[in-house]
């Protein structure tokens, strides 16, 4: 088990290197810092001096990979690649293009993100599983077919509409909750409740449908017939036999996103004005702050890889058949 985890972490290194090189290529080779400066400064202020100063302030004035002016080790370390890309491996995110410490921002903003994303995740999965089970209970009936069509319909609505409609009705028309904003501490729930509800509702269609398929697949297996032949009542078959087996693929498939919950949701956070990492990223995209985008890309990959590892471990916990080796 330990050897397995160590090996998996070993696999993660080339992937992170890949992500690192890819972002480096995207942000510094495909587009040069000069072009970034041009776009950032706008048409009016483009003078070579202004561009140079913009680059110098942010440390983009160094050579990309190799610095011929320096000697020894610093000819490699005093470069953009080392300063901006390699340092990410130590989770040293540096400063944003606007001059703020990215690490401090992340530390501060990940909690509101988590406050929205975690309840959405937990409630969402529970609701979907409950609905799916309920539908499987009435499988092959009119109720099943209509519920499935409803699910497909719910899936066919863009997430943006859920947010717009939710905000419009719950906050604007009926005045049940504040439209947007955030408070830390105990009062936060008033601001959290709407985003969480909307997050849950927007996932119901797809989730319920997928889980129904998984449960149905189990429902057709031989051991279910065995259970019935034992005289187990239908409801017990569902909860004691189908549910635990169906939960294995469900749980193991959702584990991968758990670490990424910290990253928050771009859409929900920006619509509801929640000062989390999602809206942070979105602001960075809209103000073209490449340093932040780069950091978030790397952070996202790290969290995803942790998620993959957790997935493997979760298999051993829920499925007696799986042992890691």
């Amino acid at each position, binding site marked *: 088990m330990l050897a397995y985890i160590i090996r998996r972490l070993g696999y993660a290194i080339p992937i992170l290197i890949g992500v690192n090189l890819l972002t480096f290529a995207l942000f510094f080779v495909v587009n040069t810092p000069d072009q970034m400066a041009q776009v950032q400064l706008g048409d009016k202020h483009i003078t070579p001096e202004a561009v140079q100063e913009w680059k110098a302030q942010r440390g983009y004035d160094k050579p990309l990979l190799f610095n011929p002016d320096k000697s020894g080790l610093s000819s490699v370390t005093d470069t953009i690649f080392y300063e901006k890309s390699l340092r990410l491996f130590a989770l040293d995110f540096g400063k944003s293009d606007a001059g703020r410490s990215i690490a401090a921002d992340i530390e501060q903003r990940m909690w509101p993100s988590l406050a929205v994303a975690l309840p959405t995740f937990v409630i969402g999965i529970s609701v979907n599983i409950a609905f799916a089970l309920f539908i499987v209970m009435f499988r*092959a009936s009119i109720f099943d077919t209509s519920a499935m069509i409803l699910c497909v319909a719910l899936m066919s*609505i*863009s997430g943006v509409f859920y947010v717009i409609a939710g905000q419009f009705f719950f906050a604007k028309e009926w005045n049940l909750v504040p439209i947007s904003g955030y408070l830390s501490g105990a009062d936060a729930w008033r601001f959290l409740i709407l985003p969480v509800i909307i997050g849950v509702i927007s996932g119901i269609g797809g989730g319920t449908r997928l889980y129904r398929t998984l449960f149905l697949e189990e429902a057709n297996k031989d051991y279910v017939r065995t259970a019935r032949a034992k005289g187990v009542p239908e409801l017990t078959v569902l909860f004691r036999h189908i549910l635990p087996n169906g939960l294995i693929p469900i749980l193991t498939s959702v584990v991968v996103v758990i670490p990424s919950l910290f990253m928050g949701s771009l859409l929900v956070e920006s619509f509801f004005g929640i000062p989390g990492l999602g809206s942070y990223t979105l602001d960075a995209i809209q103000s073209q702050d490449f340093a932040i985008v780069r950091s978030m890309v790397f952070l996202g990959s790290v969290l995803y890889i942790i998620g993959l590892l957790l997935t493997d471990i979760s298999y051993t916990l829920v499925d007696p058949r799986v042992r890691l080796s």
Partner: protein
Amino acid sequence: MSTSAMDVSSVDVSTMNELGFRLHFLWSDILIFLLAASLIGFAITLYRSPLSRARWAQVFESKIGVAAFMVILFYVVVALVDSVHFQIQLEQTSESSEVHYAPEAKSLLDVVLAPMQGKDEKTYSAPFAIHSFAKATVELPDGGVAREFPRLLHGGSHLENEDEHLVDVMVKSLTIIGWALIPCLILIALHHAFLRKSASGLPWPVIYTTSAIIFLIATWALQMSEYYHVLGTDKVGQDVLCGALKAIRTGVLIGTLATLVTLPLAVLLGISAGYFKGWVDDVVQYIYTTLNSIPGILLIAASVLLIDVYIETHPEQFKLLSDRADFKFIALCFILGMTSWTGLCRLLRAETLKLSQLEYVQAAHAFGVSRWRVITRHILPNTTHLILIALVLDFSGFVLAEAVLSYIGVGVDPSMKSWGNMINEARAELAREPVVWWSVTAAFILMFVLVLAANLFSDRVRDAFDPRTSGSGKSDGGKVK
């Protein structure tokens, strides 16, 4: 640089000068027609194989399947019609023999939608309204000045008496629908009388109803647009219905072009990984895990930002506004495709691994059949159902993604009509008092219908083609009837 065919972002064909226009192909136009042609080709090859023919029959014999298909077909036809662009010849002003063309390319759809275009109001107006949505200062006949809701310039301008408004809408609607019903009924009757004998299992009543409904709605909307703004007008007074219809091209194209990018990559890498195993598999797995590990929306956003930078720093390559928008659009499709091939690739890898263990592949090896032939004859044809299902599912995914991306500000160019852009404006519109609801509603309905149809259709395709799910709906129960 003149309008040469070597232009980076578009191709002009100026052969029909005497007719007063010339075709102007955007790259996305060319791609979409290529795609349509290859899809038809693909359908023909599928039709030849009796196995897949039987399965398609199953798709089209289901009521939902055939209805969804008709709806998708309608959208695709609109998108194709909107993809034939041309520039109208301008009046020759000087003596010079040089022919000038309008700087903006129009499409065939613009011709169809002519009743809705060129009738811009000043600002917002509600559906079927005859008054503007916002108060304006008007001069009264007696010379005084008042703040009131002015009459619209075009919407309902034929009305003498404002009180007739509601009655007029009703009467006109009924008349139009009545007239439109006649050709529907005649066609149905003719078909019923002559073609019924070659009855396949198709659910004709559903086909009739669906096509009649589409036809009635389309005619009604077009005809009513002669008199009113059926879905109101937007902030700058343009007809919302017109914009929403123009956005169909964007939606359909983004769905299909992005899939087009996805497909070859996923198929090539997925099948190679599953078939050759060993280091090929390692490399492919590495690539898709790496790509997967980057949060998709961030990768897209980052890439689109870079495209923006490219466009801004190379203004000389994009002369027409539409060329620029088109370049960004194709780039967006490309980026979407590049970031979402991994799912299908993974599926295909797993399926190929499974297939290459099958005895008929082993038998082919025992016959010394070359690897290339094993892949093309034995493996690829047996994965088409996976590809197909992924194709339709991806399509609806991309259409939905466009809305989110446009909202975030990394979607299609703001100058391009798209549902995402319409929704983007909805934030401000919904904050007004009273709210401006029609723009976002129009985008919602058109988008919802397309995605729903695609999802339902892919469901049927999956039921018919996926051996695992087919029949799973009607299983066990343990009760005596």
